[in-house]
Protein backbone atom coordinates (compact mmCIF):
# COMPACT_ATOMS: atom_id res chain seq x y z
CA UNK A 1 0.00 0.00 0.00
CA UNK A 2 2.75 2.44 0.94
CA UNK A 3 4.71 1.50 -2.13
CA UNK A 4 1.69 2.45 -4.22
CA UNK A 5 1.14 5.74 -2.47
CA UNK A 6 4.70 7.04 -2.78
CA UNK A 7 4.67 7.84 -6.51
CA UNK A 8 1.31 9.54 -6.09
CA UNK A 9 2.76 11.85 -3.46
CA UNK A 10 5.69 12.63 -5.73
CA UNK A 11 3.54 13.46 -8.72
CA UNK A 12 1.44 15.67 -6.50
CA UNK A 13 4.51 17.68 -5.63
CA UNK A 14 5.28 18.12 -9.30
CA UNK A 15 1.72 19.10 -10.04
CA UNK A 16 1.86 21.85 -7.47
CA UNK A 17 5.26 23.01 -8.71
CA UNK A 18 3.72 24.73 -11.68
CA UNK A 19 2.30 24.37 -15.16
CA UNK A 20 5.35 22.66 -16.58
CA UNK A 21 4.03 19.16 -15.98
CA UNK A 22 2.75 17.89 -19.31
CA UNK A 23 2.08 14.34 -18.29
CA UNK A 24 -1.64 14.48 -17.83
CA UNK A 25 -1.90 11.00 -16.45
CA UNK A 26 0.46 11.79 -13.63
CA UNK A 27 -1.58 14.78 -12.53
CA UNK A 28 -3.64 13.89 -9.45
CA UNK A 29 -6.12 16.59 -10.39
CA UNK A 30 -6.99 14.92 -13.63
CA UNK A 31 -6.54 16.56 -16.96
CA UNK A 32 -8.45 19.41 -18.45
CA UNK A 33 -11.94 18.46 -17.62
CA UNK A 34 -12.54 14.82 -18.06
CA UNK A 35 -10.29 12.96 -15.74
CA UNK A 36 -7.26 10.80 -16.13
CA UNK A 37 -6.57 9.59 -19.61
CA UNK A 38 -9.80 10.99 -20.90
CA UNK A 39 -8.30 11.79 -24.25
CA UNK A 40 -6.90 8.30 -24.58
CA UNK A 41 -3.35 9.61 -24.67
CA UNK A 42 -0.60 8.39 -22.46
CA UNK A 43 -1.15 4.91 -21.33
CA UNK A 44 -4.80 4.07 -20.82
CA UNK A 45 -5.14 2.72 -24.33
CA UNK A 46 -8.32 1.39 -25.88
CA UNK A 47 -9.85 4.85 -25.87
CA UNK A 48 -9.38 5.34 -22.15
CA UNK A 49 -10.57 1.94 -20.94
CA UNK A 50 -7.81 0.15 -19.19
CA UNK A 51 -6.11 -0.21 -15.88
CA UNK A 52 -7.27 1.99 -13.03
CA UNK A 53 -5.07 4.84 -11.91
CA UNK A 54 -4.10 6.58 -8.70
CA UNK A 55 -7.05 5.36 -6.73
CA UNK A 56 -7.21 3.54 -3.43
CA UNK A 57 -10.11 1.65 -1.94
CA UNK A 58 -12.38 3.46 0.46
CA UNK A 59 -12.12 2.55 4.14
CA UNK A 60 -14.94 0.70 5.88
CA UNK A 61 -17.74 3.05 6.83
CA UNK A 62 -18.41 4.24 10.35
CA UNK A 63 -22.15 4.80 10.04
CA UNK A 64 -22.30 6.61 13.36
CA UNK A 65 -20.99 9.55 11.35
CA UNK A 66 -22.97 10.44 8.25
CA UNK A 67 -23.61 13.63 6.33
CA UNK A 68 -26.88 14.44 8.08
CA UNK A 69 -26.29 12.76 11.44
CA UNK A 70 -25.52 16.03 13.25
CA UNK A 71 -22.20 14.87 14.72
CA UNK A 72 -20.26 15.69 11.57
CA UNK A 73 -18.89 19.22 11.50
CA UNK A 74 -19.73 20.81 8.17
CA UNK A 75 -18.65 24.23 6.95
CA UNK A 76 -15.15 24.21 8.45
CA UNK A 77 -13.66 24.37 4.95
CA UNK A 78 -14.55 26.05 1.68
CA UNK A 79 -16.45 24.02 -0.90
CA UNK A 80 -14.49 22.90 -3.95
CA UNK A 81 -16.25 23.87 -7.19
CA UNK A 82 -16.20 22.10 -10.56
CA UNK A 83 -16.85 22.90 -14.20
CA UNK A 84 -19.85 21.55 -16.06
CA UNK A 85 -19.62 17.78 -16.43
CA UNK A 86 -16.08 17.82 -15.03
CA UNK A 87 -14.43 16.27 -12.01
CA UNK A 88 -10.92 17.62 -12.29
CA UNK A 89 -9.91 20.14 -9.65
CA UNK A 90 -9.15 23.46 -11.34
CA UNK A 91 -5.95 25.30 -10.29
CA UNK A 92 -7.97 28.00 -8.53
CA UNK A 93 -9.63 25.37 -6.31
CA UNK A 94 -6.49 23.49 -5.26
CA UNK A 95 -5.63 25.81 -2.40
CA UNK A 96 -8.85 24.73 -0.68
CA UNK A 97 -7.75 21.10 -0.82
CA UNK A 98 -4.31 22.05 0.51
CA UNK A 99 -5.96 23.75 3.49
CA UNK A 100 -7.91 20.60 4.29
CA UNK A 101 -4.76 18.50 3.95
CA UNK A 102 -2.88 20.88 6.22
CA UNK A 103 -5.60 20.61 8.90
CA UNK A 104 -5.73 16.81 8.69
CA UNK A 105 -1.94 16.60 8.99
CA UNK A 106 -2.06 18.62 12.20
CA UNK A 107 -5.11 16.79 13.60
CA UNK A 108 -4.30 13.16 13.15
CA UNK A 109 -7.33 11.99 15.13
CA UNK A 110 -9.80 13.56 12.71
CA UNK A 111 -11.52 11.84 9.82
CA UNK A 112 -13.12 13.41 6.79
CA UNK A 113 -16.35 12.86 4.89
CA UNK A 114 -16.45 14.34 1.39
CA UNK A 115 -19.89 14.77 -0.20
CA UNK A 116 -20.08 15.28 -3.96
CA UNK A 117 -22.88 17.21 -5.64
CA UNK A 118 -23.88 18.22 -9.16
CA UNK A 119 -26.05 20.78 -10.86
CA UNK A 120 -29.46 19.66 -12.11
CA UNK A 121 -28.52 19.72 -15.79
CA UNK A 122 -27.59 16.08 -16.22
CA UNK A 123 -29.86 13.10 -15.60
CA UNK A 124 -30.31 11.90 -12.05
CA UNK A 125 -28.35 8.65 -11.97
CA UNK A 126 -25.47 9.93 -14.08
CA UNK A 127 -25.28 12.84 -11.65
CA UNK A 128 -25.03 10.49 -8.67
CA UNK A 129 -22.01 8.83 -10.25
CA UNK A 130 -20.50 12.18 -11.29
CA UNK A 131 -20.95 13.61 -7.77
CA UNK A 132 -19.17 10.56 -6.36
CA UNK A 133 -16.35 11.00 -8.87
CA UNK A 134 -15.95 14.61 -7.74
CA UNK A 135 -15.75 13.57 -4.09
CA UNK A 136 -13.21 10.91 -5.06
CA UNK A 137 -11.15 13.38 -7.09
CA UNK A 138 -10.79 15.47 -3.94
CA UNK A 139 -9.96 12.36 -1.91
CA UNK A 140 -7.31 11.34 -4.44
CA UNK A 141 -5.79 14.81 -4.26
CA UNK A 142 -5.66 14.60 -0.45
CA UNK A 143 -3.98 11.21 -0.71
CA UNK A 144 -1.52 12.78 -3.13
CA UNK A 145 -0.82 15.38 -0.45
CA UNK A 146 0.06 12.67 2.03
CA UNK A 147 -3.24 12.12 3.83
CA UNK A 148 -3.91 8.41 4.43
CA UNK A 149 -6.87 7.26 2.36
CA UNK A 150 -8.34 5.40 5.32
CA UNK A 151 -9.17 8.74 6.98
CA UNK A 152 -11.31 9.89 4.06
CA UNK A 153 -14.80 8.55 3.22
CA UNK A 154 -16.95 9.72 0.30
CA UNK A 155 -20.57 9.79 -0.78
CA UNK A 156 -22.62 11.49 -3.48
CA UNK A 157 -25.99 13.19 -3.43
CA UNK A 158 -25.98 13.90 -7.17
CA UNK A 159 -28.30 16.77 -7.89
CA UNK A 160 -30.13 16.45 -4.56
CA UNK A 161 -29.51 18.93 -1.72
CA UNK A 162 -28.45 21.82 -3.98
CA UNK A 163 -26.57 24.65 -2.25
CA UNK A 164 -28.51 27.21 -4.27
CA UNK A 165 -31.35 25.75 -6.37
CA UNK A 166 -31.07 26.83 -10.00
CA UNK A 167 -27.55 28.27 -9.60
CA UNK A 168 -25.75 25.54 -11.47
CA UNK A 169 -22.18 26.74 -10.84
CA UNK A 170 -22.81 26.93 -7.09
CA UNK A 171 -24.15 23.38 -7.01
CA UNK A 172 -21.26 21.66 -8.80
CA UNK A 173 -19.25 21.10 -5.67
CA UNK A 174 -17.61 18.89 -3.07
CA UNK A 175 -18.25 19.68 0.61
CA UNK A 176 -16.27 18.59 3.64
CA UNK A 177 -17.45 17.14 6.93
CA UNK A 178 -15.13 16.51 9.92
CA UNK A 179 -15.57 13.92 12.63
Amino acid at each position, binding site marked *: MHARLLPIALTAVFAFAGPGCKNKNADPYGNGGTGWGADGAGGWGNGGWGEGGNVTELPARDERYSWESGNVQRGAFSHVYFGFDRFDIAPAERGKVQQVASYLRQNSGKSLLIAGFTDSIGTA*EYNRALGERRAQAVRSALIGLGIPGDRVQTLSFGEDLPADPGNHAANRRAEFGLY
Partner: protein
Amino acid sequence: MPESTCASRLRAAHRIFAAASAAVAAAAAILVAAGDAAAQAEITIRGTSKHVISVANFSGSGGADAANIVRADLAKSGFFNIAPNPSGVYSALGGVNGSALAGTLRSPDGKELFSRRYAGPDLRRNAHTFAADIVAEVTGVRGIANSQIAFVAGGSGNKEIYLCDYDGANVRKVTRDGKISVSPSISPDGSQIAYTSYRSGFPDIYLIDLRSGSRSRIINAPGTNSGAAISPDGKKIALTMSWPGNPELFVTGMGGGKGKRLTNTPGVESSPTWSPDGRSLIFTGDSGGRPLLYKMSSGGGGPQRLSVGYNYCTEPNWSPDGKRLAFNIRQGGSHAVAVYDFASGRSKIVASGGAEDPCWGPDSRHLVFAQSGGLVVLDVDSGARRSIVSGMGASEPSWTR
Protein backbone atom coordinates in the same frame (compact mmCIF):
# COMPACT_ATOMS: atom_id res chain seq x y z
CA MET B 1 -57.15 -9.05 -40.33
CA PRO B 2 -56.62 -12.77 -40.86
CA GLU B 3 -52.90 -12.78 -41.62
CA SER B 4 -51.02 -14.77 -39.08
CA THR B 5 -47.52 -13.38 -39.35
CA CYS B 6 -46.22 -9.96 -38.67
CA ALA B 7 -44.58 -9.70 -42.09
CA SER B 8 -47.71 -10.56 -44.00
CA ARG B 9 -49.72 -8.10 -41.92
CA LEU B 10 -47.21 -5.43 -42.74
CA ARG B 11 -47.24 -6.20 -46.45
CA ALA B 12 -51.01 -6.16 -46.58
CA ALA B 13 -51.18 -2.99 -44.57
CA HIS B 14 -48.62 -1.38 -46.77
CA ARG B 15 -50.68 -2.12 -49.88
CA ILE B 16 -53.82 -0.64 -48.35
CA PHE B 17 -51.88 2.25 -46.98
CA ALA B 18 -50.16 3.14 -50.24
CA ALA B 19 -53.41 2.97 -52.15
CA ALA B 20 -55.12 5.19 -49.62
CA SER B 21 -52.61 7.95 -49.50
CA ALA B 22 -50.19 8.88 -52.22
CA ALA B 23 -48.60 11.52 -50.02
CA VAL B 24 -47.75 9.11 -47.24
CA ALA B 25 -46.57 6.54 -49.76
CA ALA B 26 -44.18 9.15 -51.09
CA ALA B 27 -42.92 9.78 -47.57
CA ALA B 28 -42.38 6.04 -47.16
CA ALA B 29 -40.42 6.00 -50.41
CA ILE B 30 -38.15 8.74 -49.09
CA LEU B 31 -37.53 6.73 -45.96
CA VAL B 32 -36.69 3.71 -48.07
CA ALA B 33 -34.27 5.81 -50.09
CA ALA B 34 -32.65 6.89 -46.85
CA GLY B 35 -31.47 3.35 -46.37
CA ASP B 36 -33.65 2.44 -43.44
CA ALA B 37 -36.33 0.52 -45.25
CA ALA B 38 -37.22 -2.27 -42.88
CA ALA B 39 -37.26 -0.35 -39.63
CA GLN B 40 -38.95 2.78 -40.88
CA ALA B 41 -41.54 0.96 -42.95
CA GLU B 42 -42.48 -1.09 -39.92
CA ILE B 43 -42.73 1.99 -37.75
CA THR B 44 -44.81 3.92 -40.28
CA ILE B 45 -47.15 1.10 -40.99
CA ARG B 46 -47.56 -0.28 -37.51
CA GLY B 47 -48.82 3.08 -36.38
CA THR B 48 -51.54 3.19 -39.01
CA SER B 49 -52.71 -0.38 -39.53
CA LYS B 50 -54.74 -1.26 -36.50
CA HIS B 51 -56.76 -4.31 -35.73
CA VAL B 52 -60.43 -3.74 -35.12
CA ILE B 53 -62.21 -5.20 -32.11
CA SER B 54 -65.63 -4.96 -30.54
CA VAL B 55 -66.02 -5.28 -26.76
CA ALA B 56 -69.62 -5.86 -25.69
CA ASN B 57 -70.56 -4.89 -22.14
CA PHE B 58 -69.74 -7.81 -19.87
CA SER B 59 -72.54 -9.54 -18.04
CA GLY B 60 -72.90 -9.36 -14.26
CA SER B 61 -72.55 -6.59 -11.70
CA GLY B 62 -69.72 -4.23 -12.67
CA GLY B 63 -69.59 -5.73 -16.16
CA ALA B 64 -70.01 -2.42 -17.96
CA ASP B 65 -67.14 -0.82 -16.02
CA ALA B 66 -64.89 -3.81 -16.61
CA ALA B 67 -65.66 -3.70 -20.35
CA ASN B 68 -64.79 -0.01 -20.35
CA ILE B 69 -61.40 -0.80 -18.82
CA VAL B 70 -60.75 -3.40 -21.52
CA ARG B 71 -61.80 -0.98 -24.28
CA ALA B 72 -59.55 1.78 -22.89
CA ASP B 73 -56.64 -0.65 -22.56
CA LEU B 74 -57.03 -1.90 -26.12
CA ALA B 75 -57.25 1.63 -27.51
CA LYS B 76 -54.17 2.69 -25.52
CA SER B 77 -52.24 -0.37 -26.67
CA GLY B 78 -51.88 1.30 -30.06
CA PHE B 79 -52.76 -1.95 -31.82
CA PHE B 80 -56.58 -1.65 -31.89
CA ASN B 81 -59.48 0.48 -33.00
CA ILE B 82 -62.71 -0.15 -31.12
CA ALA B 83 -65.77 -0.98 -33.24
CA PRO B 84 -69.38 -0.63 -32.05
CA ASN B 85 -70.50 -4.06 -33.27
CA PRO B 86 -68.80 -7.40 -33.72
CA SER B 87 -69.49 -8.17 -37.36
CA GLY B 88 -66.31 -8.99 -39.24
CA VAL B 89 -63.94 -7.93 -36.47
CA TYR B 90 -62.36 -9.43 -33.36
CA SER B 91 -64.79 -9.58 -30.46
CA ALA B 92 -64.20 -9.74 -26.73
CA LEU B 93 -66.92 -11.10 -24.45
CA GLY B 94 -66.96 -11.33 -20.69
CA GLY B 95 -68.89 -12.12 -17.56
CA VAL B 96 -68.27 -10.72 -14.08
CA ASN B 97 -68.93 -12.58 -10.85
CA GLY B 98 -67.73 -10.63 -7.81
CA SER B 99 -64.14 -9.69 -8.61
CA ALA B 100 -63.69 -12.59 -11.02
CA LEU B 101 -63.88 -12.14 -14.76
CA ALA B 102 -64.41 -14.78 -17.44
CA GLY B 103 -63.16 -13.48 -20.77
CA THR B 104 -63.40 -14.85 -24.30
CA LEU B 105 -61.77 -13.60 -27.49
CA ARG B 106 -63.18 -14.49 -30.89
CA SER B 107 -61.56 -13.98 -34.27
CA PRO B 108 -63.24 -11.92 -37.02
CA ASP B 109 -64.66 -15.16 -38.46
CA GLY B 110 -66.21 -16.08 -35.12
CA LYS B 111 -63.70 -18.72 -34.03
CA GLU B 112 -62.87 -18.78 -30.30
CA LEU B 113 -59.23 -17.84 -29.81
CA PHE B 114 -59.17 -18.21 -26.04
CA SER B 115 -61.46 -18.33 -23.07
CA ARG B 116 -59.94 -17.65 -19.64
CA ARG B 117 -61.03 -17.02 -16.09
CA TYR B 118 -59.33 -14.22 -14.14
CA ALA B 119 -59.93 -14.94 -10.48
CA GLY B 120 -57.77 -12.33 -8.73
CA PRO B 121 -59.25 -10.24 -5.91
CA ASP B 122 -59.32 -7.00 -7.95
CA LEU B 123 -61.79 -6.78 -10.86
CA ARG B 124 -59.93 -3.81 -12.34
CA ARG B 125 -56.69 -5.78 -12.43
CA ASN B 126 -58.45 -8.81 -13.91
CA ALA B 127 -59.83 -6.62 -16.71
CA HIS B 128 -56.33 -5.24 -17.38
CA THR B 129 -54.95 -8.78 -17.60
CA PHE B 130 -57.70 -9.83 -20.03
CA ALA B 131 -56.83 -6.82 -22.23
CA ALA B 132 -53.10 -7.66 -22.12
CA ASP B 133 -53.92 -11.25 -23.10
CA ILE B 134 -55.97 -10.01 -26.08
CA VAL B 135 -53.05 -7.89 -27.27
CA ALA B 136 -50.66 -10.83 -26.86
CA GLU B 137 -53.00 -13.24 -28.70
CA VAL B 138 -53.63 -10.99 -31.71
CA THR B 139 -50.23 -9.31 -32.09
CA GLY B 140 -47.78 -11.73 -30.53
CA VAL B 141 -46.48 -8.82 -28.44
CA ARG B 142 -46.73 -8.80 -24.67
CA GLY B 143 -49.40 -6.29 -23.65
CA ILE B 144 -48.88 -3.42 -21.24
CA ALA B 145 -52.39 -3.27 -19.78
CA ASN B 146 -51.55 -5.21 -16.61
CA SER B 147 -48.07 -3.72 -16.15
CA GLN B 148 -46.79 -1.54 -13.32
CA ILE B 149 -44.47 1.44 -13.20
CA ALA B 150 -42.26 2.29 -10.21
CA PHE B 151 -41.02 5.86 -9.93
CA VAL B 152 -39.58 8.51 -7.65
CA ALA B 153 -41.60 11.49 -6.44
CA GLY B 154 -41.06 14.29 -3.99
CA GLY B 155 -38.76 17.25 -3.49
CA SER B 156 -35.05 17.65 -2.93
CA GLY B 157 -33.89 15.72 0.12
CA ASN B 158 -37.26 14.03 0.55
CA LYS B 159 -38.01 11.56 -2.18
CA GLU B 160 -40.02 8.35 -1.96
CA ILE B 161 -40.60 5.37 -4.24
CA TYR B 162 -44.10 5.03 -5.70
CA LEU B 163 -45.94 2.52 -7.86
CA CYS B 164 -48.76 3.02 -10.35
CA ASP B 165 -50.60 1.10 -13.04
CA TYR B 166 -49.42 1.61 -16.64
CA ASP B 167 -52.13 4.24 -17.17
CA GLY B 168 -51.20 6.25 -14.06
CA ALA B 169 -54.12 4.92 -12.03
CA ASN B 170 -53.72 3.42 -8.56
CA VAL B 171 -50.72 5.54 -7.44
CA ARG B 172 -49.40 4.26 -4.11
CA LYS B 173 -46.44 5.04 -1.91
CA VAL B 174 -43.92 2.23 -1.44
CA THR B 175 -41.42 3.91 0.92
CA ARG B 176 -42.18 6.29 3.80
CA ASP B 177 -38.75 7.18 5.10
CA GLY B 178 -38.72 10.96 4.75
CA LYS B 179 -35.21 10.54 3.32
CA ILE B 180 -33.88 10.32 -0.22
CA SER B 181 -35.14 7.18 -1.98
CA VAL B 182 -34.31 7.10 -5.69
CA SER B 183 -33.30 5.05 -8.75
CA PRO B 184 -35.90 2.24 -8.53
CA SER B 185 -35.66 -0.90 -10.66
CA ILE B 186 -38.78 -3.02 -10.57
CA SER B 187 -38.25 -6.71 -11.28
CA PRO B 188 -39.67 -7.96 -14.59
CA ASP B 189 -42.49 -9.77 -12.76
CA GLY B 190 -43.30 -6.80 -10.56
CA SER B 191 -42.62 -8.64 -7.31
CA GLN B 192 -39.55 -6.72 -6.13
CA ILE B 193 -38.07 -3.23 -6.32
CA ALA B 194 -34.36 -2.53 -5.92
CA TYR B 195 -33.59 1.12 -5.21
CA THR B 196 -31.12 3.53 -3.65
CA SER B 197 -31.86 4.91 -0.18
CA TYR B 198 -29.90 7.33 1.99
CA ARG B 199 -31.70 5.93 5.04
CA SER B 200 -28.44 4.97 6.79
CA GLY B 201 -26.95 8.34 5.94
CA PHE B 202 -25.15 6.76 2.98
CA PRO B 203 -26.44 5.72 -0.45
CA ASP B 204 -27.13 1.98 -0.36
CA ILE B 205 -29.16 -0.52 -2.36
CA TYR B 206 -32.32 -1.88 -0.76
CA LEU B 207 -34.63 -4.60 -2.02
CA ILE B 208 -38.34 -4.54 -1.26
CA ASP B 209 -40.46 -7.65 -1.66
CA LEU B 210 -43.80 -6.15 -2.67
CA ARG B 211 -45.75 -9.29 -1.71
CA SER B 212 -44.52 -9.54 1.86
CA GLY B 213 -43.62 -5.88 2.30
CA SER B 214 -40.24 -6.85 3.71
CA ARG B 215 -37.24 -4.70 2.96
CA SER B 216 -33.56 -5.44 3.26
CA ARG B 217 -30.40 -3.48 2.68
CA ILE B 218 -28.49 -5.67 0.27
CA ILE B 219 -25.51 -3.49 -0.74
CA ASN B 220 -23.79 -1.12 1.67
CA ALA B 221 -20.22 -0.92 0.43
CA PRO B 222 -18.26 2.23 1.32
CA GLY B 223 -18.93 5.21 -0.91
CA THR B 224 -21.94 5.44 -3.21
CA ASN B 225 -23.98 2.43 -4.30
CA SER B 226 -26.60 3.29 -6.89
CA GLY B 227 -28.17 2.65 -10.28
CA ALA B 228 -29.38 -0.88 -9.55
CA ALA B 229 -30.84 -2.68 -12.59
CA ILE B 230 -32.50 -6.06 -12.01
CA SER B 231 -31.70 -8.57 -14.76
CA PRO B 232 -34.43 -9.89 -17.08
CA ASP B 233 -34.43 -13.25 -15.26
CA GLY B 234 -34.81 -11.48 -11.91
CA LYS B 235 -31.67 -13.11 -10.50
CA LYS B 236 -28.96 -10.44 -10.73
CA ILE B 237 -28.38 -6.76 -10.14
CA ALA B 238 -26.07 -4.54 -12.19
CA LEU B 239 -25.10 -1.29 -10.48
CA THR B 240 -22.43 1.31 -9.81
CA MET B 241 -20.31 0.97 -6.65
CA SER B 242 -17.48 3.32 -5.73
CA TRP B 243 -15.66 1.39 -2.99
CA PRO B 244 -12.62 0.78 -5.25
CA GLY B 245 -11.96 4.53 -5.08
CA ASN B 246 -13.84 5.29 -8.28
CA PRO B 247 -17.38 4.60 -9.54
CA GLU B 248 -17.29 1.24 -11.32
CA LEU B 249 -19.86 -1.23 -12.65
CA PHE B 250 -20.58 -4.45 -10.78
CA VAL B 251 -22.97 -7.38 -11.07
CA THR B 252 -24.22 -9.04 -7.90
CA GLY B 253 -26.83 -11.62 -6.99
CA MET B 254 -30.18 -10.51 -5.57
CA GLY B 255 -28.69 -10.87 -2.12
CA GLY B 256 -26.09 -8.20 -2.90
CA GLY B 257 -22.56 -8.54 -1.57
CA LYS B 258 -19.41 -7.43 -3.31
CA GLY B 259 -20.32 -9.02 -6.62
CA LYS B 260 -18.20 -9.16 -9.75
CA ARG B 261 -16.43 -6.02 -10.86
CA LEU B 262 -16.89 -5.26 -14.56
CA THR B 263 -15.01 -2.02 -15.20
CA ASN B 264 -11.72 -0.53 -14.09
CA THR B 265 -11.39 2.99 -15.41
CA PRO B 266 -10.54 6.43 -14.08
CA GLY B 267 -13.89 7.78 -15.30
CA VAL B 268 -17.54 7.51 -14.33
CA GLU B 269 -19.63 4.47 -15.22
CA SER B 270 -23.34 4.55 -14.51
CA SER B 271 -26.84 3.43 -15.40
CA PRO B 272 -26.40 -0.13 -16.71
CA THR B 273 -29.27 -1.72 -18.67
CA TRP B 274 -29.55 -5.44 -19.50
CA SER B 275 -30.03 -7.11 -22.87
CA PRO B 276 -33.14 -9.35 -22.92
CA ASP B 277 -30.96 -12.48 -22.71
CA GLY B 278 -29.00 -11.06 -19.77
CA ARG B 279 -25.67 -11.56 -21.54
CA SER B 280 -24.86 -7.93 -22.26
CA LEU B 281 -25.03 -4.57 -20.58
CA ILE B 282 -25.15 -1.09 -22.07
CA PHE B 283 -24.15 1.75 -19.79
CA THR B 284 -22.99 5.35 -19.69
CA GLY B 285 -19.25 5.90 -19.42
CA ASP B 286 -17.34 9.16 -19.57
CA SER B 287 -13.83 7.88 -20.12
CA GLY B 288 -14.09 9.22 -23.65
CA GLY B 289 -14.28 12.74 -22.24
CA ARG B 290 -18.07 13.00 -22.21
CA PRO B 291 -20.90 10.64 -21.32
CA LEU B 292 -21.27 8.10 -24.11
CA LEU B 293 -22.80 4.65 -24.43
CA TYR B 294 -20.79 1.45 -24.14
CA LYS B 295 -21.70 -2.20 -24.46
CA MET B 296 -20.04 -5.09 -22.69
CA SER B 297 -20.61 -8.66 -21.60
CA SER B 298 -22.40 -8.87 -18.27
CA GLY B 299 -19.79 -11.47 -17.30
CA GLY B 300 -16.91 -9.06 -17.85
CA GLY B 301 -14.65 -8.08 -20.73
CA GLY B 302 -13.77 -4.98 -22.67
CA PRO B 303 -16.49 -2.37 -23.20
CA GLN B 304 -17.10 -1.35 -26.79
CA ARG B 305 -18.37 2.07 -27.75
CA LEU B 306 -21.92 2.03 -29.11
CA SER B 307 -22.15 4.84 -31.65
CA VAL B 308 -25.69 6.15 -31.67
CA GLY B 309 -25.13 9.49 -33.33
CA TYR B 310 -25.05 11.79 -30.31
CA ASN B 311 -22.15 12.94 -28.17
CA TYR B 312 -23.88 13.22 -24.80
CA CYS B 313 -25.85 10.10 -23.94
CA THR B 314 -27.07 8.97 -20.53
CA GLU B 315 -29.63 6.63 -18.95
CA PRO B 316 -29.83 3.91 -21.64
CA ASN B 317 -32.74 1.47 -21.53
CA TRP B 318 -32.81 -1.67 -23.70
CA SER B 319 -36.19 -2.72 -25.10
CA PRO B 320 -37.52 -6.11 -23.93
CA ASP B 321 -37.46 -7.41 -27.53
CA GLY B 322 -33.80 -6.37 -27.80
CA LYS B 323 -34.34 -4.37 -30.96
CA ARG B 324 -34.12 -0.81 -29.69
CA LEU B 325 -32.38 1.31 -27.10
CA ALA B 326 -33.86 4.46 -25.57
CA PHE B 327 -31.56 7.00 -23.95
CA ASN B 328 -31.21 10.63 -22.97
CA ILE B 329 -29.38 13.18 -25.06
CA ARG B 330 -28.87 16.90 -24.60
CA GLN B 331 -30.45 19.08 -27.23
CA GLY B 332 -30.43 22.87 -27.12
CA GLY B 333 -29.61 22.97 -23.42
CA SER B 334 -32.43 20.62 -22.54
CA HIS B 335 -32.97 16.87 -22.28
CA ALA B 336 -34.44 14.85 -25.09
CA VAL B 337 -35.15 11.14 -25.44
CA ALA B 338 -33.78 9.33 -28.48
CA VAL B 339 -34.30 5.78 -29.70
CA TYR B 340 -31.58 3.78 -31.43
CA ASP B 341 -32.56 0.91 -33.71
CA PHE B 342 -29.95 -1.87 -33.63
CA ALA B 343 -30.85 -3.34 -37.04
CA SER B 344 -30.56 -0.11 -38.99
CA GLY B 345 -27.95 1.52 -36.76
CA ARG B 346 -29.98 4.70 -36.76
CA SER B 347 -31.34 6.94 -34.02
CA LYS B 348 -34.20 9.38 -33.87
CA ILE B 349 -35.42 11.82 -31.25
CA VAL B 350 -38.84 10.80 -29.96
CA ALA B 351 -39.39 13.37 -27.19
CA SER B 352 -37.73 16.68 -26.42
CA GLY B 353 -38.37 19.63 -24.12
CA GLY B 354 -36.84 18.16 -20.99
CA ALA B 355 -37.88 14.51 -21.38
CA GLU B 356 -35.70 12.37 -19.06
CA ASP B 357 -35.08 8.81 -17.94
CA PRO B 358 -36.81 6.71 -20.61
CA CYS B 359 -37.91 3.14 -19.87
CA TRP B 360 -39.57 0.69 -22.25
CA GLY B 361 -42.86 -1.01 -21.55
CA PRO B 362 -43.27 -4.77 -21.95
CA ASP B 363 -44.51 -4.32 -25.54
CA SER B 364 -41.21 -2.69 -26.62
CA ARG B 365 -43.39 -0.05 -28.26
CA HIS B 366 -44.35 2.32 -25.45
CA LEU B 367 -41.84 4.38 -23.48
CA VAL B 368 -42.40 6.06 -20.15
CA PHE B 369 -40.26 9.08 -19.27
CA ALA B 370 -40.23 11.98 -16.85
CA GLN B 371 -41.06 15.48 -18.01
CA SER B 372 -41.91 18.62 -16.05
CA GLY B 373 -42.29 16.73 -12.80
CA GLY B 374 -44.71 14.20 -14.28
CA LEU B 375 -44.62 10.96 -16.21
CA VAL B 376 -45.50 10.63 -19.89
CA VAL B 377 -46.19 7.43 -21.82
CA LEU B 378 -45.32 7.66 -25.51
CA ASP B 379 -46.28 5.22 -28.27
CA VAL B 380 -42.99 5.41 -30.16
CA ASP B 381 -44.53 3.94 -33.31
CA SER B 382 -47.59 6.18 -33.61
CA GLY B 383 -46.34 9.22 -31.70
CA ALA B 384 -49.40 9.19 -29.43
CA ARG B 385 -48.53 10.46 -25.94
CA ARG B 386 -50.41 10.57 -22.66
CA SER B 387 -49.56 12.20 -19.39
CA ILE B 388 -50.09 9.53 -16.73
CA VAL B 389 -48.77 11.25 -13.59
CA SER B 390 -48.49 15.00 -13.04
CA GLY B 391 -47.66 17.42 -10.27
CA MET B 392 -45.73 14.99 -8.09
CA GLY B 393 -42.15 15.89 -8.90
CA ALA B 394 -41.93 12.47 -10.57
CA SER B 395 -38.72 11.03 -12.05
CA GLU B 396 -36.80 7.84 -12.83
CA PRO B 397 -39.65 5.54 -13.93
CA SER B 398 -39.06 1.76 -14.13
CA TRP B 399 -41.57 -0.47 -15.96
CA THR B 400 -42.30 -4.15 -15.41
CA ARG B 401 -41.63 -6.45 -18.38
